[in-house]
């Protein structure tokens, strides 16, 4: 299919991803300017030198952000990198080279936590995101009541992980939980302890978040709204059915936004802690433990150097997956 031109990409000169994306984002943030002209002005002004006599105020203006960022992100980052190669518990300190990493790669629990983290990430990628895309595409057909449905489906997204943990510890309760009541009412054995049975535990945890699709739905609907209607009109004239329009026109154009949804979700999954910590504390037999929880345990034991070595794996895993997804979905390049 040939790449169509849209109103926003039309007046732009050669690719300047950042600014283009920026204009789109700002429009998303409630700005009503026509993207084209605004972009051109922005392009000119972004290159302006700081006016005479304003260097001082500009520096002062940047200071709070730099201090906050430096103190709570940059300094911790360097502390992490340095102490990952040390035995460190706050007071005692000794360089031990790669020992932390050796210990990590010898520990079966680390592999379990690593595997579980990837399992949750996969559940998001292959269940949550596709489901969200499907719902978004259906809602974009604007069946009666689509606004209300969009709102309702979005609600779980603003509920915290801790609240979800409370909800599902009740829901999965072997005696009084709704799930076993329903299962029992269907005539099946309704006494399984879903969260503390090694065969079901990981799935039970994943099932708590794979239906939190509101965010994906909203991203997808916004992207669909930006697809020029001529495409569909032309397709209708040629006799394409709604199904064909969805699969041949809409879906390919969603590549970018699907990648974005996966990115956002992977970030959450790689750092997954709240749900697992409160629901199962990683049990049974570490069947639900994540890397973040594994690092946290080391921290609680006073093995800060080891915790930081694990932390470095979490950060590296994040970086690797994010770079991969950006490549695969060609984010940064234009879908349209």
């Amino acid at each position, binding site marked *: 299919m040939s790449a169509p031109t849209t109103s926003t990409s039309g007046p732009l000169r050669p690719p300047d991803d950042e600014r283009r*994306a920026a*204009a*789109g*984002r*700002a*429009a*998303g*943030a*409630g*700005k009503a*300017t026509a*993207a084209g002209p*605004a*972009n051109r*002005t922005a392009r000119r002004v972004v290159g*302006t030198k700081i*006016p005479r006599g304003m260097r001082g*105020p*500009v520096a002062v203006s*940047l200071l*709070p952000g*730099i201090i906050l*960022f430096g103190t709570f*992100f*940059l300094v*911790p980052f360097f*502390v*992490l990198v340095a102490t990952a190669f040390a035995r460190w518990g706050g007071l005692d300190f000794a360089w031990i080279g790669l020992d932390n990493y050796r210990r990590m790669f010898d520990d079966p629990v680390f592999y379990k936590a690593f595997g579980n983290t990837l399992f949750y990430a996969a559940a998001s990628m292959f269940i949550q995101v596709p*489901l969200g895309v499907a719902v978004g595409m259906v809602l974009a*057909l604007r*069946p009666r009541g689509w606004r209300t449905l969009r709102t309702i489906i979005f609600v*779980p997204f*603003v*509920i*915290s992980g*801790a*609240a979800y943990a*409370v*909800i599902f510890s009740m829901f999965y309760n072997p005696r*009084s939980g709704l799930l076993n009541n329903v299962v029992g009412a269907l005539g099946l054995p309704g006494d399984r302890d879903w969260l503390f049975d090694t065969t079901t535990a990981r799935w039970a945890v994943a099932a708590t978040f794979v*239906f939190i*699709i509101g*965010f994906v739905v909203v*991203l997808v609907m*916004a992207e669909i*709204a930006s697809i020029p*209607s001529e495409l*569909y*009109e032309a397709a209708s004239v040629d006799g394409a059915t709604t199904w064909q*329009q969805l699969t041949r026109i809409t879906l390919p154009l969603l590549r970018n936004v699907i990648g974005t*949804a996966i*990115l956002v979700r992977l970030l959450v999954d*790689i*750092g997954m*802690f709240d749900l697992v910590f*409160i629901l199962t504390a990683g049990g049974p037999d570490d069947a639900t433990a994540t890397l973040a929880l594994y690092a946290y345990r080391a921290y609680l034991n006073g093995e800060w150097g080891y915790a930081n070595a694990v*932390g*470095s794996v*979490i*950060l590296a895993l994040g970086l690797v997956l994010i770079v991969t997804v950006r490549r695969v979905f060609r984010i940064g390049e234009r879908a349209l």
Partner: protein
Amino acid sequence: MKGTMRSAASGTAGLASVGRRPVWAYVLIYGFLGAVTLLALTPTVWVMLSSFKTGNQIFTGQGFWPSPFTVQGFVDAFTQIHLHEYLLNTLIYAGFGTLGALVAAFLAAYPLARFAFVGRNALVALFSLALALPLVGLATPVFFVVRELGLFDSRLGMVIFYSALQFPFTFIVLRAFLVSTPPELEEAAMMDGAGYFTTLFRVVLPLARPALATVAVVAFVNIWNEFFFANLLLVSQENQNVQLALAGFKSQFGFNVTGAVAGATVVMLVPICLFLVLQRQVISGLTAGAVK
């Protein structure tokens, strides 16, 4: 990304949407949407309904609807669990944390959106990177830095830390907004001799109000729902936020289940209500933050 909720809401979608469809198509559409909604919301609705149940009904798990209906749980949540203390703490963290993030981000976003100077791109890239990494990996060093600064287990420390935590997101959205805004008004003000901060607060701030409102709502909800760092940086019960209280509720199930369930409902309802009232802000803010 060009997609905006504005266009999604204003009816400019291109997909042939209004055309008549056969009945089976409607059955399929609503069947699918209904099933997903049911799966996504049933546990939550069931727990919210349970906050109107008696302890006995909760323990036996009999019946979906409360019977008998009681608000004793909500009374217990405040009188026995002292939910209002946690709510107040969280309000302080979310309110001032949002304010701090907004001020720092606005002050940094303007020069980084408008002027070219050495290190500008590096600074923008650095701030953006924080939004693209799983920050829980930094847990132990964050704890270490916060403790060294004497900010461990303190309300002030939590406010400052949350300002920092929400800074990257707030900064990125605000800067993107400012980049797309024409600078003529500010230039005119500066020509007339207005100083940097006068221009910033008298000219730019009013223009940026919609963007500020958008990020403020999202930052507020994010801090309200934050558990990981609260768990890491707070120990005293008097400083805990509602999410820590929620985690504690699980252990309360044994002796005060009604209060715990009702408390959880109250804690959830705050961001839900905020979302229902400020739906457009929440959605556009989140969308804007994601598409980095």
